[in-house]
């Protein structure tokens, strides 16, 4: 009996340390992202650990719940961000289960954005939330990409996809369209991206306008974990076991990917909501045509 409990405690500590690792790595990468954008724009930029400093600073700030907020949704949404991405971390990185579950969890991130925006009752938050609903088009290429991957590997379990790549080499060369769709997703999740209409500065801070203090700190934590998980997923699904089986190489791969994405983010303007959505729909159409072509040939 005691052994089971000790074992369980061991697993809990294991899980929490995984989460902490993902948060630290993700936070540092996001700080790095900010630094590179600053350097490209000719500014010195904040130190790389700025993201983590922000998180800790907000964690110790006082909050007060706005009178317009709808509770407990207002608080629960900030918690849900971490829940979603910790679940994605465990199911994806630790247990390597189905890719479809991870896509479902990614989709829940939209619910978090929307819920944060609408539950506060602030007009800026509402605009951010409605824009987040608009940009749901970013997920559709993902589903098509999942279909293409399934046609190629006959499995959506990440473990199977990795072992497929062990035999046949990286998928990125076989499915460039699917990889491109996934890469667009990474870009649209990055801060200051051309698709970042949700956090456009013209609507203050978008959906996190009314989530300040500790609630903002929670959202920053979830964003850092999300960045880690998404980069890991891209590397695992498209580049494969050469990089993913060695933690150090994985870290280097993540840094390189963040570098590429930062350069793209720094050099592109922010699109208007309609244009951002329509561009994503064009990409969707491209990937769906690829999917139909692939499934017709098999």
């Amino acid at each position, binding site marked *: 009996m005691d052994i089971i409990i000790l074992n*369980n405690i061991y697993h809990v500590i294991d899980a*929490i340390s995984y989460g902490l690792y993902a948060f630290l790595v993700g936070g540092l990468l996001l700080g790095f992202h900010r630094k590179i954008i600053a350097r490209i724009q000719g500014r010195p930029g904040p130190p790389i650990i700025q993201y983590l400093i922000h998180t800790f600073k907000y964690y110790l700030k006082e909050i007060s719940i706005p009178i317009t907020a709808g509770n407990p949704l207002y608080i629960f949404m900030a918690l849900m961000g971490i829940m979603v991405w910790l679940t994605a971390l465990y199911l994806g990185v630790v247990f390597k289960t189905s890719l479809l579950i991870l896509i479902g969890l990614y989709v829940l991130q939209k619910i978090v954005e929307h819920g944060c925006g609408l539950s506060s009752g602030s007009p800026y938050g509402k605009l951010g939330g409605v824009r987040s609903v608009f940009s749901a088009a970013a997920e559709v290429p993902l589903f098509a990409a999942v279909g293409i991957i399934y046609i190629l590997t006959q499995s959506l379990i990440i473990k199977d996809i990795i072992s497929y790549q062990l035999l046949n080499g990286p998928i990125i060369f076989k499915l460039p369209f699917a990889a491109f769709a996934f890469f667009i997703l990474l870009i649209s999740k990055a801060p200051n991206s051309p698709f970042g209409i949700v956090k456009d500065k013209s609507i203050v801070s978008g959906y996190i306008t009314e989530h300040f203090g500790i609630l903002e700190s929670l959202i920053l934590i979830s964003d850092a974990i999300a960045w880690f998980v998404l980069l890991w997923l891209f590397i695992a699904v498209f580049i494969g076991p050469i990089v993913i089986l060695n933690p150090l190489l994985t870290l280097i791969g993540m840094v390189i990917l963040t570098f590429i994405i930062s350069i793209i983010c720094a050099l592109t303007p922010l699109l208007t909501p309609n244009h951002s959505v329509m561009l994503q729909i064009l990409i969707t159409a491209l990937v769906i045509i690829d999917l139909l072509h692939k499934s017709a040939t098999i």
Partner: protein
Amino acid sequence: MTPEKKSGIISLIIGIIGFACIIFYSNNVLLIYLGTALFTPFMIYGIGMMVNPKTKRSEEGRIPFRGW
């Protein structure tokens, strides 16, 4: 008690009960991991509310330094 403090205490209670459940009544590793994912944010929020600084507002529901 302010509603903020109350929400912190409630989430701390939920977190502690949840962790106790997954530690004492679970024998599946996947379930423990998912339970950790579910209850860790409650713990983070609850602890954060406990270390939250004392309010600078003169009265509940009023924003400091701005009158009104």
